[in-house]
């Protein structure tokens, strides 16, 4: 269907004045009808410009992004009532800019912080109190119902979050996931930060997604500062992103196996994950790829010796990964636990707007590397990996098959490298009154950054969206009617980001 928004490319610089500006009513009708059809929301956020609050929506369909801006009322009837995809976005806007989506079915703070404008709090929270959690939780009533509260501090070495289960016996009727404990106020901090600090802040949004985040950031800056990046740098960026993907997918497959007490793959994959982090370490001196990607290119090249060594190592690791995979996916005990556990059907996944491996496991054919390719992905033929059962098994298989595909990509990229990367540390100036949105397929799915500059070329708004922003709700739905003992397994099959969500 046709739409009134502006059609743009991933990473394309757009003058703010060229973006269609709607009255709120028109904007509302437009984005609602698009989202109810097969458009998905990449961004929906507010920003302040010369004392006026405006709303921005970036939607996607197939190979295109679409953007529109609107005036903002103080309150409006919640879009979420008609289209679930808006659920978190509307809560976030309410929290950051005190705009009330009236009738929102679960209007509760997302990250627990005072709004940016110093206005009266929509949720009635008192932020001089330290603890997030002085608010209601969704509850189920009935004689047999009991609640289980877990977190913020969990049993293992993981990030904090609060999980509230409403159960009848062992069965989970509803799970509410309350985050915000990791909130560092990054989007706000960026506005006051010195430019030299930005790459480092960006790499600390989520350490396990440092490469994808710095890629989104750097491409956005490059677009706004008119910087061209050479092919060699693009290849190494893609290579690093794939290494990040492989390390996380393989690590999680091991952890899934550990969660059902099948220990050999847990140990082997746990160790193999490290091999990929060590490749990043050898390239840039950091196991998470921090410090590798900067606006303008990449700071380190891969030597011929490293190239040869990596290719050999990857060949060997690939065969080990396949052998362990054969053992894992053929074990009856594993199938018994993985199959039909934590199902998210295709229709629900679409309604929630899930992204990444979680969406592909439910039969949604979307991979940003394929649909909105940027950098080296414009040159790489990719087959989008999908499954259809939407259970833990499907999510495990998608991640397994993606890891294998990424191994091939890394191998190809390595052999194509010409070792002619040049990089020099430079300062950048952003073009004033412009807008850019960048999208990459991080290992958890669609990651996107958006920058709006003011008339002086300073950053007026920096918006970050981690794929987890879409997917935490998917985990909650996956747990419905499951045994509470299956939570670790379901959780690990998604393995969502706390800090990426909390920002």
């Amino acid at each position: 269907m046709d739409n009134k928004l502006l059609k743009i490319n991933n990473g394309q610089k757009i003058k703010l004045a060229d973006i269609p500006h709607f009255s709120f009513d028109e904007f509302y009708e437009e984005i609602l009808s698009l989202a109810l059809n097969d458009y998905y929301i990449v961004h929906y956020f507010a920003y302040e410009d010369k004392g006026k609050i405006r709303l921005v929506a970036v939607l996607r369909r197939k190979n295109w992004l679409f953007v529109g801006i609107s005036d903002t009322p103080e309150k409006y009837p919640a879009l979420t009532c008609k289209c679930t995809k808006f659920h978190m976005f509307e809560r976030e806007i309410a929290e950051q800019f005190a705009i009330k989506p009236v009738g929102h079915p679960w209007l509760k703070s997302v990250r627990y912080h005072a709004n940016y404008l110093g206005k009266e709090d929509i949720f009635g929270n008192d932020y001089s109190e330290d603890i997030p959690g002085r608010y209601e939780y969704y509850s189920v009533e009935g004689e047999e119902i009991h609640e289980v509260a877990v977190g913020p501090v969990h049993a293992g070495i993981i990030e904090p979050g609060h999980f509230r289960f409403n159960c009848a016996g062992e069965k989970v009727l509803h799970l509410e996931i309350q985050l915000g404990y990791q909130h560092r106020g990054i989007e706000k901090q960026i506005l006051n930060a010195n430019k030299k600090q930005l790459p480092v802040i960006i790499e600390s949004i989520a350490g396990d997604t440092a490469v994808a985040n710095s890629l989104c950031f750097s491409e956005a800056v490059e677009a706004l500062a008119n910087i061209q990046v050479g092919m060699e740098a693009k290849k190494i960026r893609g290579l690093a992103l794939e290494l990040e993907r492989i390390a996380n997918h393989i690590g999680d497959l091991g952890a899934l196996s550990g969660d059902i007490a099948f220990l050999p793959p847990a140990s082997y994959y746990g160790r193999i994950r490290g091999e990929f982090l060590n490749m990043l370490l050898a390239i840039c001196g950091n196991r998470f790829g921090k410090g590798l990607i900067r606006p303008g290119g990449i700071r380190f090249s891969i030597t011929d010796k490293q190239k040869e060594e990596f290719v050999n190592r990857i060949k060997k690791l690939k065969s080990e990964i396949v052998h362990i995979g054969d053992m894992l996916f053929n074990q009856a005990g594993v199938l018994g636990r993985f199959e039909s556990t934590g199902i998210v059907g295709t229709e629900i996944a679409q309604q929630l707007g899930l992204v990444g491996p979680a969406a592909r496991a439910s039969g949604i054919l979307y991979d940003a590397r394929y649909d909105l390719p940027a950098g080296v992905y414009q040159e790489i033929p990719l087959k989008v990996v999908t499954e259809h059962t939407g259970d833990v098994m499907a999510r495990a298989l998608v991640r397994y098959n993606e890891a294998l595909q990424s191994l091939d990509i890394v191998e190809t990229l390595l052999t194509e490298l010409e070792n002619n990367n040049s990089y020099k540390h430079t300062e950048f100036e952003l073009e004033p009154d412009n807008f850019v949105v960048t999208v990459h397929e991080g290992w958890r799915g669609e990651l996107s950054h958006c920058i709006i500059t003011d008339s002086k070329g300073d950053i007026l708004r920096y918006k970050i969206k981690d794929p987890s922003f879409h997917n935490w709700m998917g985990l909650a739905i996956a747990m419905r009617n499951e045994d509470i003992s299956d939570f670790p397994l379901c959780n690990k099959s998604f393995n969502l980001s706390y800090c990426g969500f909390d920002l």
Partner: protein
Amino acid sequence: MLFSIIKNRIEQGYRTSKYPNEEIKLPERFKGKPEINSNCEQKIAELCASNCPQDAIDPKEKTIHLGKCVFCGLCEELSNGSFIKFSNDFELAVTDPEQLIYDGMIEKLEIHAKKHFKKLFGRSLQLRQVSAGGCNACEADLNVLNTPFFDLSRFGIQFVASPRHADGIIVTGPVTRNMKKALLKTYEAIPDPKIVIASGSCAISGGPFRGNPEQLNGVDGILKVDLYIPGCPPHPLTTLHALLTFFK
């Protein structure tokens, strides 16, 4: 099935490192303990200091604050190694916050390891980890100590689920306002005597989030820290070295 388990077992072999009995060499580009040339031109030191994203360099004194530094290597790049050069030495932990201001020398951690800690925890050390705004890199590289290569439990050191079972906490992250209370409660739940370890640039100084009002610039402000482990994140060997030298 059994056949494939055995086959994989043989293929995987024995992977645990011999560290600390045998040295491990990290790749050339790993950025460990910096070497500082205090005779370097003032202009170059100032160039590095003004470009350092973490404002970790004092160009007059020619020092780096190891708790603020994220080991990005920009200073080495800009000075072409003439002011700062990162070595491969991963032994970075210190006990005294003054020692974080580094002029090219770190006193050996052994000297500062307290005897009574060794006596109490030398044979068995149980730690509760609390992530208080960590980006998950520090957390992941602590978790890695449980994988077969490092195999932390062979030293009698374990991460435990309950603070009541713990001898101390190891904190990551700048301590967000929203985690302050949970962190303090976890600390209170640990029986005395207890130790506090700050792991990573964020936990030591707030890291990239230093000065941001949603966090507390590290653990120091609310708890007395016994051991600081620099890095962004600290390499697992930096942590392992710190734990073994301080407690064993």
